[in-house]
């Protein structure tokens, strides 16, 4: 990748987008002007309306319905007209008149008036209220109103409140007459009190809304650039001009992608800011209620939000670009992206269903995981493991999407074709035979295996660790790797470095491996000081190892934990991935990248660093010797050493030195570390010299 070229493209695309008025209006105008404006206008209008309803007195009619006898009911059942409503009972009229902000009105047909909206409510009772009360009976009072009319609802509330006061007064009188206190008839006073802090209450509310809003904003930010930079460029006929320059497709995609990503982030942050300002301004209007809506996010939470926002914007931008690439013109691209947009908002809406939580499965589901994490973050402090899982998996999807975009870019039939539809084929016969996978394909293969591990592997291992591990290694890592490489017609022997190492190289490998197992054990001690593994996690792992040791014996354990990863993971990492990346990257960068990806593959924030370190050593071995076998041997040594330490099955003299509890406290003795370092160094010397011999032999 040529950074100067990428920068050139990025700068040009930004300039180009800046000069496009539509983009400016959509990206800056909408969030900063239109939408807070509308929001303010709508809420102001609502406030004014509410205020008006509050001030205007309710128009109420009081009527009395004659008491119905059972023969009246029968007559009505057979279709007789109901008896006409009479004038309101005088006692009731007096009560209603005393309710604040009500106004008594009279209508010939109050029901119709209520229906038409010229009347807000009707209060109905039987006749002779005062007499009935005097006899100690109960009188039914009905307030008829129209719930769809705010004015009518308001009248209903006013009337019910007013009549309740009357009821309480009457009750007090009756109790007094028989000499009872009002406490007597309410033996239990039931109260509820919300203990959630105002921050948490608002957080829960924001947590439901914010992710969707952000997603939409990120998407809107990416929408036009993604189309304009791909389909737009095709439509305007500048694509071929660009492709005729000595620029690699990778650089083109990178430059364009960065632009889309940048604009998407800008839109996301701009919207976030404008929303925050609008909301703050809004809250100032309800100063009396401010406490209920306290919005205060601790700075760490804001930082984590931002950290998660980055891969999310990355994912959305890459996906949109990949989709837009399939289109031949802007209109077609809009057709493709719009349903796709709904597709990404939908999972976010699912996540807002109350009760859905981040779990070992949901944390790997794209979009859903980010939404759920946001929801969590709004009410609770960040959980490192969850943030890690979400960022990692979103990152993986994002890289996959970017690879897809790059791949689409490389399909000449999509770039230059004027044909209708999508002329795309994956027939095996159309792949040119190659000696190593393309770098993009190697990365895609890695990501694919990682996804299998996310979804199937973790699940299987959580059910049964032992079987799960075997299936993961052979079925989810080795098999897909071999199948895919075969399908795209890669020469397996060359791509996987299947060649016999020289005796010297093998000796060097064993020395390096022998030294490394001690060094990495010491690194583990230091690592544990900086980032201690949670107690439960460590115990859980130990427990599973013990169960499986009992069930399968040490040999079985070695087979599953040492041999099968050594074979399967080496084929993927030091075979396919290394040979793919080596074509584009300088050797030391390839070692770094493969090592890091190897660390990431172990899906745990507590294991990344150490596995990545071992990954570096393994990658170096295979790169130097050119033989996968050296990687397999060293990988086996590292893993089996771990098993022997954990099961306390090391040979006699080593056992007391490497007891876990002792290591934990003091680390390895200095003389052992020094010997290990010497062993390691000696191994490097042996390996380098025999690799050099081999190279000179070949050059001769």
């Amino acid at each position, binding site marked *: 990748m040529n950074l100067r070229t990428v920068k050139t493209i990025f700068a040009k695309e930004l300039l180009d987008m800046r000069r496009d008025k539509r983009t400016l209006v959509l990206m800056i105008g909408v969030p900063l002007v239109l939408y807070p404006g509308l929001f303010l206008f709508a809420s102001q209008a609502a406030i004014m309306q509410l205020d008006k309803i509050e001030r205007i007195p309710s128009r109420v009619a009081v009527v009395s319905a004659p008491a119905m006898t059972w023969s009246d009911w029968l007559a009505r059942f057979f279709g007789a007209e109901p008896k006409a409503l009479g004038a309101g009972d005088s006692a009731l009229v007096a009560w209603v008149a005393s309710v604040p902000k009500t106004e008594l009105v009279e209508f010939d047909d109050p029901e119709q008036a209520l229906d038409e909206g010229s009347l807000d409510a009707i209060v109905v009772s039987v006749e002779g209220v005062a007499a009935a009360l005097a006899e100690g009976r109960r009188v039914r009072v009905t307030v008829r109103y129209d719930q769809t009319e705010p004015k009518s609802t308001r009248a209903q509330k006013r009337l019910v409140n007013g009549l309740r006061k009357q009821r309480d007064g009457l009750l007090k009188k009756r109790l007094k007459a028989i000499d009872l206190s009002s406490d007597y008839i309410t033996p239990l006073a039931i109260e509820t009190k919300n203990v959630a802090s105002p921050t948490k209450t608002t957080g829960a509310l924001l947590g439901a809304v914010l992710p969707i809003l952000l997603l939409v904003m990120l998407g809107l930010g990416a929408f036009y650039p993604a189309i304009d930079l791909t389909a737009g460029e095709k439509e305007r006929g500048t694509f071929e001009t660009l492709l*005729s320059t000595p620029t690699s497709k990778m650089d083109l995609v990178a430059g364009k992608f960065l632009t889309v990503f940048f604009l998407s982030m800008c839109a996301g942050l701009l919207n976030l800011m404008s929303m925050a300002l609008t909301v703050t301004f809004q809250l100032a209007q309800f100063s009396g209620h401010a406490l209920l809506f306290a919005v205060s996010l601790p700075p760490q939470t804001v930082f984590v939000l931002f950290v998660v926002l980055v891969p999310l914007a990355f994912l959305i931008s890459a996906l949109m670009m990949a989709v837009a690439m399939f289109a031949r013109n802007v209109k077609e691209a809009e057709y493709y992206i719009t349903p796709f947009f709904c597709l990404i908002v939908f999972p976010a809406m699912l996540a807002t269903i109350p009760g859905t939580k981040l779990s070992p499965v949901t944390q790997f589901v794209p979009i859903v995981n980010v939404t759920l994490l946001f929801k969590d973050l709004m009410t609770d402090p960040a959980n490192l493991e969850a943030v890690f899982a979400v960022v990692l998996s979103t990152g993986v999807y994002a890289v996959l999407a970017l690879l897809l975009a790059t791949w689409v870019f490389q399909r000449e039939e999509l770039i230059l074709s004027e*044909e209708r539809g999508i002329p795309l084929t994956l027939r095996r016969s159309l792949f040119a035979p190659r000696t190593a996978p393309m770098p993009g394909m190697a990365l895609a293969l890695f990501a694919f295996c990682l996804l299998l591990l996310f979804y199937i592997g973790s699940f299987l291992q959580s059910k049964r660790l032992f079987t799960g591990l075997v299936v993961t290694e052979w079925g989810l890592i080795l098999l897909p790797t071999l199948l895919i490489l075969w399908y795209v017609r890669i020469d397996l022997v060359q791509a996987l470095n299947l060649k016999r190492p020289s005796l010297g190289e093998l000796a060097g490998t064993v020395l390096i491996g022998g030294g490394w197992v001690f060094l990495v054990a010491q690194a583990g001690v230091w690592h544990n000081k900086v980032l201690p593994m949670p107690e439960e996690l460590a115990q859980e792992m130990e427990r599973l190892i013990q169960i499986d040791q009992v069930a399968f014996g040490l040999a079985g354990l070695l087979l599953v934990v040492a041999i099968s990863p050594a074979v399967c993971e080496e084929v993927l990492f030091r075979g396919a991935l290394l040979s793919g990346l080596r074509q584009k990257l300088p050797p030391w960068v390839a070692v770094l990248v493969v090592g890091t990806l190897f660390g990431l593959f172990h899906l745990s924030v507590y294991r990344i660093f150490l596995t990545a370190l071992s990954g570096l050593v393994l990658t170096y071995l295979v790169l130097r010797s050119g033989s996968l076998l050296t990687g397999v041997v060293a990988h086996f040594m590292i893993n089996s050493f771990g098993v022997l330490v954990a099961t306390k099955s090391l040979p006699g003299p080593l056992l007391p030195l490497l007891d876990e509890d002792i290591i934990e406290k003091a680390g390895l003795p200095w003389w052992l570390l020094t010997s290990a370092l010497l062993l390691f160094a000696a191994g490097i010397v042996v390996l380098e010299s025999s690799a050099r011999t081999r190279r000179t032999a070949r050059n001769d």
Partner: protein
Amino acid sequence: MIRAEKLRKVFHAARGKSVEAVYGATFSVGAGEILGLLGPNGAGKTTLLRMIATLIVPTSGRCAVAGIDTDDDPNGVRRHIGFLSGNTKLYGRLTGAEVLRYFGRLYGMADEAIAQRTAELSDLLDMGEFLNQRCETLSSGQTQKVSIARVLLHDPPVLILDEPTLGLDILTSRTILDFILEAKNRNRAIIFSTHYMTEAELLCDRVGLIHRGDLLALGTKSALYAQTGTDNLKDTFLALVDRTDQGDG
């Protein structure tokens, strides 16, 4: 400078159908030479030129430009090519000067070199007054001049021009044709396609006639006239097409 051997391109259309757009084109173009490719629309001219310019990958066959194989190092090949076609338009929202700076940088030129070269070309093509206007505001003649400047910016030894005069008025066409002759005099290897026979007669040292993906004949104008017993390219072309079609029948 250009050496093509049995270049062949098969397109896979929908439903498993495949179209042989170019089959087995073998030819070469030297420095200071103009090769014209003649043929009706859809004959395969564009596909052939795109393969040389490494915009598409040949199904089989080899091609080298300035000694570099298009398979081995497509970026290296493109560095030595100036490519102009009806589909190589300019960015409307950028000015001519910005377009040239952008492409100069993509060709790996230093900014000073770009500025210097732009000034030279601006004088040569008389672009001074409109170079700082956005391309979308330029007339077609002005646009074409900026395009030519874009092609010549990195001073490539090979020029590939796909129907460069298609749809242009006479004056603009003349600008293009002058520029092709000028480049020939500066010892560039030029391959261009057209379906205007008169242009070919005027410019080309050698002519290749393409029909339905097949390079029917290739040679100097006089050789082709002699071969078909005609005295102009139009009749030559028709005679060759008839001969092939009869051969098919």
